[in-house]
């Protein structure tokens, strides 16, 4: 009787933890690519070390990307990106914290393709902005999820200004592509 009671306590204690662990999908190798396209110059940078966690049951989603992990074709451009635009010594990371909202009646854990919208707060360069973007989630039979999302960001919205001499080379609106493959923990 006494042992049974102990077992009960332990179960009560562990259950939420276990439930949490089983439910979460995560990765440390998510990819975020951004493009700036102007008639003068096309600029691309890739960060393939994005950390992200998704909870399919609640739709909670989070991203964290180290700004210095964005790699440019031109090393000097990468230095300027960090030094002059993102000020990555002051603001080392960019975050997103939000919620995946599937269409009514859809369940993210069902294998198949889900057209969803993602709503939440994007923080970079010390500025937080609320945004809602469309995304596509593909759930595999084993429960892993592939997420793809294209959206646009205006640097000026995040307090990132472009000096007039290079304004012809850097687009007002950047295209971002997020590609994440989530696996169970």
């Amino acid at each position, binding site marked *: 009787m006494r042992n049974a*009671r102990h077992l*009960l*306590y332990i179960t*009560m*204690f*562990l*259950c*939420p*933890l276990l439930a*949490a*662990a089983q439910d*979460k999908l*995560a990765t*440390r190798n998510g*990819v975020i*690519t951004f493009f700036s396209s102007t008639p003068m110059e096309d600029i691309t940078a*890739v960060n*393939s070390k994005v*950390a*992200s*966690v998704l*909870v399919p049951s609640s739709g*909670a*989603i*989070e991203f*964290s990307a*180290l700004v*210095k*992990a964005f*790699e440019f*074709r*031109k*090393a*000097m*451009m990468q*230095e*300027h990106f*960090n*030094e*002059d635009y993102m*000020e990555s*010594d*002051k603001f080392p990371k960019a975050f997103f*914290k939000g919620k995946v909202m599937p269409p009514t009646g859809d369940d993210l854990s069902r294998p198949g393709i889900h057209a969803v919208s993602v709503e939440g707060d994007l923080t970079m360069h010390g500025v937080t902005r609320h945004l809602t973007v469309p995304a596509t989630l593909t759930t595999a039979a084993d429960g892993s999820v592939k997420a793809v999302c294209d959206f646009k960001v205006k640097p000026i919205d995040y307090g990132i200004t472009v*000096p007039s*001499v*290079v304004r012809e*080379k850097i687009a007002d609106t950047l295209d971002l592509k997020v*590609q994440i*493959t989530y696996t169970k*923990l």
Partner: protein
Amino acid sequence: MACTTRMFKLFLKKYVLAVVLATATLMAHAQGDLLDVLGPDTPQVVYTSASFKSTRVINGQSLESLPKGVLDFRISHRFGFVSNGIQDFFGLDQASFRLGFDYGLTDRLMVGIGRSTYQKTVDGFFKYKLLRQCDQGCTMPVTLDLVASTSATTLVKQQVPWYGENTPDGFSNRLAYSFQVVVGRKFSEGLTLQLSPGVVHRNLVATPEAHNDLMNVGAGGRVKVSKRVALTAEYFYVLPDQGPRENFRNSLALGVDIQTGGHVFQLQFTNSTGMFERAFITETSGDFFQGDIHFGFNISRVFTVYDPKAKARRRESELAK
């Protein structure tokens, strides 16, 4: 009765404990960052970058070097002495000029060549980054570079300033070398300071009393005033008791760095005419405080010639699809 009360108390104690524990676990779960499940970030090594906007403070080498595959085309210009007055349009009538190409062979090793109008000199150098200041994942507090440079004048025999009447002309008589250890630290986003002890060796000097080797110490620094503009200063002190030095003085330079995209513009006031080590460390003739100041500029334009990470990046983006 007493027994029942004790059992009840025990029961209460245990259940209260259990409920508290369970609630605490739930709360911890609800409050924590989702990303915490990934554990702490794996410490990545990040070296300090952009200690200076350019590989030169003003005349002398800074502790920055070019990344692998980057070509830097440099045009440096020093007008005449401001003290020449209106007759020379405050020096703008004259010009000393250096054209140079620098290239990053690896992230640590860069090479450069240049040609100056000053004594029609060709110069070249190697700069090797031995120690790298670390921002994250390691502990190195300073950056240390080794710089070896050489210069050779291509003046006709009669014009080489250190040739006497009977000096045989030979290539080695035209050569000089400079070796420096550049050590410095980016103390904060806005402040970088460096010291550069070194020696300049001239293969041939004008008089028997003059020393071939001149020990010197350079000091340089920059203060950022905005994201793209920095103030710079540089001084080269030639150690005393190294033989007669005619009227040569120590080199002082004050400047402004302005960076726009791939260009860095360096504007400066300096008492040095030449832009390679032998010239500005050992042959600076102007007296800064008597107005013997050159206005000048360096323009640096970088080109990415070779992209060392292209393959890896392509592979990663393929994997993501």
